[in-house]
């Protein structure tokens, strides 16, 4: 693979570049912006406490730009973080404004560094935890718990989970009533298609789509919505079949249709 990332090659080692590629190709593999920032911070190869947040912000913003160039859809939280880092960057670069009451750039940067260090620490703690001797893998419980079947007493057991699930079941049972569709107030697309096919022969001129709504369906809002949706869908279908043309002046303006001139 030849550097699809477009990252500057000059002072990057092969492993840096591979890491950068992994970033771009596998953006879904990250558990959010903080995870990504932590990964980026490793390229600085310094203690997390001495990390340059300014440099990190630039790395992140570069990453987001590259992702845009490559048309990778970034989730909203990545973009929120980018905006925040851009703000942080400007705070770090500009001389502090004595009028400003808010926290200084350094304070914000220190907090971000703290968050990264804490996340990293928790990851290491998790790894240490999982590396411990574990029951059923490294050490074992009694294989043959003993029961002298002389006195039999029945005890009833239930876990908290049982209790909560039972309560949840009771409190939500109304939500699970059988699905019954109210057909009286639904105008189907098939009905709309039938109706429009019958009328379209007479529509040589542009006519407002709303005039195709069936009679008696405009008074009740639910019925009107259903009929409008069905009629609109039917008109799209007819346009697709090349039978009519659609026109709309601007967003949310009324839609007009006419028979396609032959």
């Amino acid at each position, binding site marked *: 693979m030849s550097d699809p990332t477009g990252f500057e090659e000059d002072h990057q080692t092969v492993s840096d570049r591979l890491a950068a590629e992994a970033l771009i190709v596998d953006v879904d593999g990250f558990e959010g912006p903080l995870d990504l920032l932590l990964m980026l911070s490793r390229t600085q190869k310094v203690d997390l406490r001495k990390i340059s947040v300014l440099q990190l912000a630039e790395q992140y913003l570069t990453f987001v730009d590259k992702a845009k160039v490559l048309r990778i859809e970034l989730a909203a939280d990545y973009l929120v973080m980018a905006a925040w880092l851009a703000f942080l960057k400007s705070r770090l670069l500009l001389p502090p404004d004595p009028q400003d009451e808010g926290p200084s750039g350094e304070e914000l940067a220190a907090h971000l560094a703290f968050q990264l260090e804490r996340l990293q620490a928790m990851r290491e703690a998790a790894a240490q935890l999982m590396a411990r001797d574990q029951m059923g893998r490294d050490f*074992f*419980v*009694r*294989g*043959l*718990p*003993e*029961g*002298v*079947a*002389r*006195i*039999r*007493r*029945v*005890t*009833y*057991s*239930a*876990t*908290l*989970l*049982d*209790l*909560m*699930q*039972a*309560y*949840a*079941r*009771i*409190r*939500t*049972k109304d*939500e*699970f009533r059988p*699905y019954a569709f*109210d057909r009286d107030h639904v105008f189907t697309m098939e009905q709309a298609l039938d109706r429009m096919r019958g009328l379209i022969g007479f529509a040589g001129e542009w006519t407002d789509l709303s005039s195709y709504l069936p009679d008696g369906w405009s008074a009740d809002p639910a019925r009107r919505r259903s009929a409008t949706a069905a009629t609109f869908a039917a008109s799209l279908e007819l346009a697709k079949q090349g039978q009519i043309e659609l026109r709309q002046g601007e967003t949310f303006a009324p839609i007009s249709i006419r028979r396609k001139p032959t």
Partner: protein
Amino acid sequence: MTETDEKEQSLFEAPPMGEQERMVEAILFASADPVTVAELAARMPHGADPAEALVYLRKRYDGRGVHVVKVGDAWAIRTAPDLGFLMQKETVEQKKLSRAAIETLAIIAYHQPATRAEIEEIRGVAVSRGTIDQLLELEWIRFGRRRMTPGRPVTFVVTQGFLDHFGLESARDLPGLKELRAAGLLDSRPLPGGQGAGDEEEGEDLAGQSELFED
């Protein structure tokens, strides 16, 4: 010590007898069924002599609270027969609580104090006498104050024993519906047609519940 170390070592000599004794001890302890000498040998490093290790192990447990005993042609660790009287707790038969009982208990826990009529209203079905009796017998519920309403019905509340059994410090620590949902314990399929209705009603439910506990 890693497995490969162990194997390499066994090319030269079997582990010391003290080590073999430890191995037999651990295997007998963890196995669900008695283990034959052949099975022991198959699981231990090459050159080991489980039969000899068993002799030492057996002697070591002589007069102890557990013994190494022969069952058919296999070996097992068992508690000493003279201590059988201590094992009463192990003879207890565990049964899951019936659905009716657990639902009734859940309603009392979340809505306490609750009358029988209230429980029936929430469950939408009559509560049998046996269900309440069973919960009383388990000492998970007890009678609370009588309601000052016509008929002065008795109420039920949960007990300290209930809290202990379920690892709760107080009934207030029971999670609410929203939290049950967040934890994935509640399917959050929305009502067909009525968009969002389910979620809106949630808020009120919780309010009701905290009111209940806010005294």
